[in-house]
């Protein structure tokens, strides 16, 4: 019998409309580093949130140190020896290292109600020492440290909170390397190994497969909320992992591949040497009339930021955007809209709809000129157009005057599409166009995308899944670490496989 520190039994997690995790049986041995890999949305982050008690599983149970493990929040998890280092760094940059480590736990250093900073620094130094971080000064401000060191401070903090290394504790690392460079990563891995040698265990999540193979003793592979494989370090290589992550594709019929539009010859949008400091550089591509251009890449590849620049939300530092042969510099999204470029944003509730307003108003907001003369709105024109779109897109709402906030995800998204199409724009940037949308509405949206490209619109697409991007696009570019690393055609009769693309992404 192996010395198991933590295990989950048949963990399932359901959200309204989707199942995020099903039947997860994970086992972490004492002193072991376990890797977790999978595509975006495979369920890795959900599992980490469940283990750290930030979320509750729908069913299933967990065990820690041989006892039932359950908690209502992160603090409960910490008390029982589970600590989580979050993807976004949670340190207060304007406080010192020691102040950060003991944030919210200053009580222990109190004397007559006043914090004894010297004692806190001394204790903090010991904590840092135990991880071999002698060169970090506990009194120094966090903002003076580089990212790798901050990450180490964060880990030191979590380790100290869960404490009790006699018993062994479990540290969860969610994408700890995404902001680090190679030498920083090596430094980080060294420390992770030190933690594991002190009979603690680590769960390590990363998009970079080579890293996961490097640091982990065993690797779990997730796909669509299921665990599809468990590999020992010696059996793992990148190809095997890709294959397990990708699995089979959904049928072409679902994505209406048959009616994929043949792109025309005229270039509508061209991007030359586009760059945004810290996010992407040297991005070139051409978007032709009636084309769907898919951009693939993991989180942090720079694809989101390319979208932001294209729709005018961010201004590029270098390069050109050429629309219909003319160079454009969009000062903001309204400026881009004037030139006929509009986005369907990723966060529908925050960016796509105006919650307090009616369906009819939401539909007309991006094409006010069409329903008004001298900026005075014709209420009837607005209603007519709204009714038109409600019928055309089969939007299920009690009426055009209904508040858009009451609509389901799929119908709200159709309102967003109606708004985007109503203005007869040339280029649409679709950023996760089917996020949080049920299956039926998804199919209708796919059909709609085919129809609008047929009518002459061009689309830049960031799909919700890789499958979706491949099936909908007629051409695909792949981004990694801010650069375009591959470009390939994706005609309807010869779609590239997910495997072809994932190998460039990771």
């Amino acid at each position, binding site marked *: 019998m192996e010395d198991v520190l933590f295990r989950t039994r048949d963990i399932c997690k359901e959200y309204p409309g989707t199942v995020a995790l099903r039947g997860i049986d994970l086992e972490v041995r004492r002193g072991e580093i376990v890797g977790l890999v999978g595509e975006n949305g495979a369920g890795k982050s959900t599992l980490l949130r469940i283990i750290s008690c930030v979320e509750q599983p729908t069913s299933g149970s967990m065990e820690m140190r041989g006892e039932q493990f359950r908690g209502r929040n992160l603090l409960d998890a910490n008390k029982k020896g589970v600590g989580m280092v979050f993807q976004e760094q949670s340190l207060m940059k304007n406080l010192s290292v020691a102040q950060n480590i003991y944030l919210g736990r200053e009580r222990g250093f109190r004397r007559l109600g006043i914090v004894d900073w010297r004692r806190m620094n001394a204790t903090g130094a010991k904590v840092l020492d135990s991880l071999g971080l002698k060169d970090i000064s506990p009194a120094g401000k966090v903002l003076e440290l580089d990212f790798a060191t901050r990450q180490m401070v964060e880990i030191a903090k979590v380790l100290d909170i869960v404490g009790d290394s006699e018993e062994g504790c479990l540290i969860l690392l969610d994408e700890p390397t995404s902001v680090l460079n190679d030498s920083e990563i090596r430094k980080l891995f060294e420390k992770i190994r030190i933690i594991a040698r002190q009979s603690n265990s680590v769960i390590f999540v990363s998009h970079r497969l080579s890293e996961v193979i490097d640091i982990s003793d065993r690797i779990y592979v997730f796909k669509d909320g299921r665990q599809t494989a468990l590999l020992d370090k010696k059996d793992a290589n990148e190809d095997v992992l890709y294959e397990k992550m990708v699995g089979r594709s959904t049928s072409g019929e679902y994505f209406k591949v048959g009616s994929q539009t043949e792109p025309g010859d005229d270039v509508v949008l061209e991007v030359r040497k586009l760059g945004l400091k810290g996010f992407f550089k040297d991005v070139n591509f051409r978007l032709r009339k009636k084309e769907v251009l898919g951009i693939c890449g993991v989180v942090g590849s720079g694809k989101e930021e390319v979208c932001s620049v294209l729709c005018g939300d961010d201004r590029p530092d270098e390069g050109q955007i050429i629309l219909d042969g003319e160079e454009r510099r969009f000062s903001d999204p309204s400026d881009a809209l004037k030139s006929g470029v*509009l986005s369907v944003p990723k966060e529908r509730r925050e960016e796509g709809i*105006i919650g*307090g307003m009616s369906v009819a108003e939401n539909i007309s907001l991006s094409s006010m000129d069409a329903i008004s003369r001298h900026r005075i709105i014709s209420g009837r024109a607005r209603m007519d157009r709204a009714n038109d779109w409600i019928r055309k897109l089969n939007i299920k709402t009690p009426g055009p005057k209904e508040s858009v906030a009451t609509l389901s995800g799929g119908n709200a998204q159709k309102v967003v599409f109606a708004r985007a199409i109503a203005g007869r724009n040339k280029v649409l940037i679709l950023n996760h166009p089917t996020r949080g949308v049920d299956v039926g509405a998804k199919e209708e949206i796919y059909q709609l995308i085919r129809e609008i490209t047929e009518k002459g619109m061009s689309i830049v697409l960031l799909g919700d899944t890789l499958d979706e991007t491949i099936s909908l696009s007629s051409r695909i570019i792949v981004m990694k670490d801010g650069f375009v690393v591959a470009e390939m055609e994706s005609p309807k009769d010869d779609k590239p496989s997910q495997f072809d693309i994932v190998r460039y992404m990771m």
Partner: protein
Amino acid sequence: MTMKTRMRAFVKNFPWLLLIALVAVFTAINPRFVGPISLGNIFMVAAPLLCLSLGATFVIMTGAIDLSVGAIVSASCVIYGTTFPALGNWSILAALGFGFFAGSVNGLLFTWLKIPSFIVTLAASALWRSLALILVGGGAKGIPMELWDGLKWADISIGIVPLLFLISLVAFGLYYFIQSKTALGRAIFAVGANERGARMLGLKVNSTKFWAFALSGAGCALAGAFYSIELKTSLATIGDPVTLLAIASVVIGGTPLTGGRGSVLRTLLGALLVVIIQNGLNTVAVDPYWQQIVFGAFTIFAVFLNSEKGGRVFIIK
């Protein structure tokens, strides 16, 4: 009916209930409260308050706040009064021009420099208040008596309704039209309800905010001119208490400070309520020193009624 929907219905109808309750109470204490003199007086006092609350409503609907209302009113009052000997009733254009300019300065500083609106407008109000005091050389300066003939038109009443109140109703109609029938009006709601969304769907967020502030300035200017006409004086401190009254009119009417909801129609009701409370307190002989306490308390209570209580962070932009 659940507790929540009952609460919501209560909040929605609160201004009307308050109006009815107050009229009943004040009339019971002093039956002359609903008499023609008292009502005419209410309309007279409500006219400038309505004008200056209209634009303030727009600003609040975008989610910002204008604390320079009172100062712009003071400066406009002074500008009207001091230019009257030269321009006659055309001074109204000077006042309106100034109000629009002062509002534009607020709008530009707020959108260009991205400074929170309460700071911009608080600082700007110091500027306009000084300007007002400098122009009259401190305190007040009357409009020369020989020119009073030129102001006679303002004393006209149609029945018990004074002409100035009718003009303020025309202004109300204009703001209501802007609010409900123009692209600007829709943009004001959209920006207030979801600024990020409004930006992403291609609305001009900055220009929307700019216009809300500019229109607020213009409304204040009209109110300032009214005070000058009524009092036949340039009074540099006339606006000092009205910033609170403006916010009170807006929130008691039921427009929440969080933006994205509300209406100038509600503000019309709110302004009348404020004046009725004021008038009622006078009728039942409450010391004016005590009245500010009442308005402060009412404003806080109205904001409380209209605020989201779901634990979401409350931010004024």
